[in-house]
C-alpha cells in the first residue's frame, strides 16, 4: 500500500490539483500570520523575562513554561467556547473562519516564541547587557539591541513557533471546522483524507507540509549564515 501511495503522491503533486494548492496556501497564510503575532508578543515577553526585574516575574515565567506544554486541543475547545454563537464573543462571527484558527495557533505558538527568546537573551554575554545600561538606552531600544545581539537564537525561536503553528491539527480542526476551500489546511486535510481511506492524497499533503517546514528552516539557516559572515 505504501509504494502505491507514494506513486499516487507524485502524480497528484505534479498535476497541480487546485484544491491541494488552496489547502497549502491557506496553511501558509494562517500559520504565518499566527507566527508573526506570536513573535510580536512573544519576543518582548522573552526579553522581559530574561533581563527585567519586576513583580510577578516568577508567575510570568511559570505561565510561559506551562504554555509551552499547553494541549492544543484544549486551546481549541476554549477558543470555540468563547467565539461560538452563544459565547461571550459570539457576535463577532469568527468561529469556523481562518481568523479563529489564527487565534488558536497564536495562543499555542506564543509561549514557544517567548520561552526560546528568554533562553536566547539569557545566554548572551553579560557584558553586552551592561554595555547597554552604560549607554543609557531606553527600554525599547535596549530590547531591540538585545534581540539583535541574540539574532541566531531568536530566529530559531521564531522558526520553532512557526513549526508548532503549521503542524497544529486539533485546535485548527475544532475552531476551523475543516470547511472545504475556507478553513481546510494541510494538517486537517490529512486527517480528512486518511479518514476517507485516501492514503495517497494524505501522504502527498504530508510531504508538502514537510517540504514547507524544511524550506522555512533552510531559509533561516541561510540568513543566519550570511549574517554571521558579515558580523
Amino acid at each position, binding site marked *: 500500500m505504501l509504494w502505491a501511495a507514494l506513486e499516487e503522491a507524485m502524480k497528484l503533486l505534479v498535476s497541480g490539483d487546485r484544491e491541494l494548492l488552496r489547502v497549502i496556501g491557506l496553511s501558509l497564510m494562517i500559520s504565518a*500570520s499566527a507566527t508573526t503575532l506570536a513573535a510580536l508578543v512573544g519576543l518582548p515577553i522573552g526579553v522581559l523575562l530574561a533581563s527585567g526585574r519586576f513583580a510577578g516575574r516568577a508567575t510570568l515565567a511559570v505561565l510561559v513554561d506551562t504554555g509551552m506544554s499547553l494541549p492544543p486541543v484544549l486551546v481549541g475547545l476554549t477558543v470555540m467556547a468563547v467565539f461560538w*454563537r452563544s459565547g461571550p464573543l459570539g457576535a463577532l*462571527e469568527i468561529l469556523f473562519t481562518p*481568523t479563529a484558527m489564527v487565534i488558536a495557533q497564536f495562543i499555542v505558538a506564543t509561549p514557544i516564541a517567548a520561552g526560546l527568546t528568554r533562553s536566547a537573551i539569557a545566554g548572551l554575554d553579560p557584558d553586552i547587557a551592561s554595555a547597554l545600561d552604560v549607554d543609557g538606552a531606553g527600554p525599547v531600544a535596549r530590547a531591540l539591541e538585545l534581540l539583535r545581539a541574540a539574532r541566531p537564537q531568536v530566529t530559531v525561536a521564531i522558526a520553532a513557533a512557526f513549526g508548532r503553528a503549521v503542524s497544529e491539527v486539533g485546535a485548527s480542526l475544532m475552531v476551523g*471546522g475543516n470547511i472545504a476551500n475556507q478553513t481546510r489546511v494541510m494538517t486537517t486535510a490529512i486527517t480528512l483524507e486518511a479518514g476517507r481511506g485516501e492514503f495517497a492524497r494524505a501522504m502527498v499533503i504530508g510531504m508538502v507540509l514537510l517540504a514547507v517546514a524544511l524550506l522555512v528552516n533552510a531559509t533561516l539557516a541561510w*540568513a543566519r549564515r550570511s549574517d554571521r559572515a558579515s558580523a
Partner: protein
Amino acid sequence: MAHRLDLAARLGSTLIVLQMLAIVSSTSGADPAGTRSLLLATTTSTQDSGLLDALLPAFEDDSGIRVKTVAVGSGAALALGARGEADALLVHAPGAERKWMAEGHGDMRLPVMHNEFVVVGPAADPASVRASATVTAALGQIARQRVAWISRDDGSGTDLLEKELWRQSGEPEKPSGEAGWYVRSGQGMGATLLIADARRAYTLSDRGTWLAWRAKVRLVELLRGDPRLRNDYSVISVRADKLPEGRIHAREAVAFARWLTGPHAQRLIAEFGRERYGEPLFAPASAKPAPALPALPVPAR
C-alpha cells in the same frame, strides 16, 4: 552580507503583512453584506461519500445561499443544534432526532434519503453471522461467544444505532467486554474498519463507507437486509428563537430543508454514486419503495 539579510527581512515582513490582510478580508467569512449563508452540521458519512460535494454547489446555484459544512457526527450535530450553533442538520440518528425534536429544539424535520447498514467481519466468521436470521440474533451470538467486536462509541449515527441493536438483542448497551472482546475505538468509520481488519473483528458500517473501504481491508460483508439495519437520513432546521435575533439563519435553513427534499436534489441523490460504485449510494426519500437490493458484486482482488 548584512544587506542581504535586511532585504530578506523586509521582503518577509511585506509578504506577511499582505497575508494577514488577505486573511482578515477573507474572514469577513462573515459574508459581504447581502450574501446569505447557512451553517450545516452533518455526519462524516455524508461528507466522506462525496454526496455533499455533489449537492451543495447545486443548492448554492439554485438559491444563492452559501453553505458552510462542518462534519462532526450526528450526536455532536444535534448538540450543536441544541445550542443554536448550527442552522441546519443533516443527520442519521432517528431515535435521537425524535427525542431532540420533542425537546423543542427544531422547527422542521424532513426525511431526505436512506440506505442501509451492514455487519462486516472476518471471512472465517467464527460467530456464524452470515447464517444468522436477524441482526439481533447475530449480535447475541457474537456476545455469547465473545468474538471481537469494534464499536465506534463516538456518538455518531452509526454508534447510536449499534447501541440500540445491542439493547434489542438483550445485551447491555455497552457489553462489558471483560476478556476484551468488545472494543471501543472512539473514532470514525474508516479508522474503525482498519482496527476491525487488524483484529479480525466484527463491526457495523454504513453502506457508503463500506463500499469505499472494502477493497482496502480483508473484512467481508456478512449480514444485510434486516429492516433494523435501515439507515435513514433527515434534514432538520433549528428553531430561530434559540439565540438573539439574527444569529441563527433560520430562513436559509428552511430553504435548504425544502430544497433537499425537492425534485432537483432528490434526482441528484438518486443518481449519486452510480459512476463510482456502479449503483446509487442512497435512495431518495421521495422514491417509491424499491425492490430488494441486489447483492453487492464481489470486487476482484
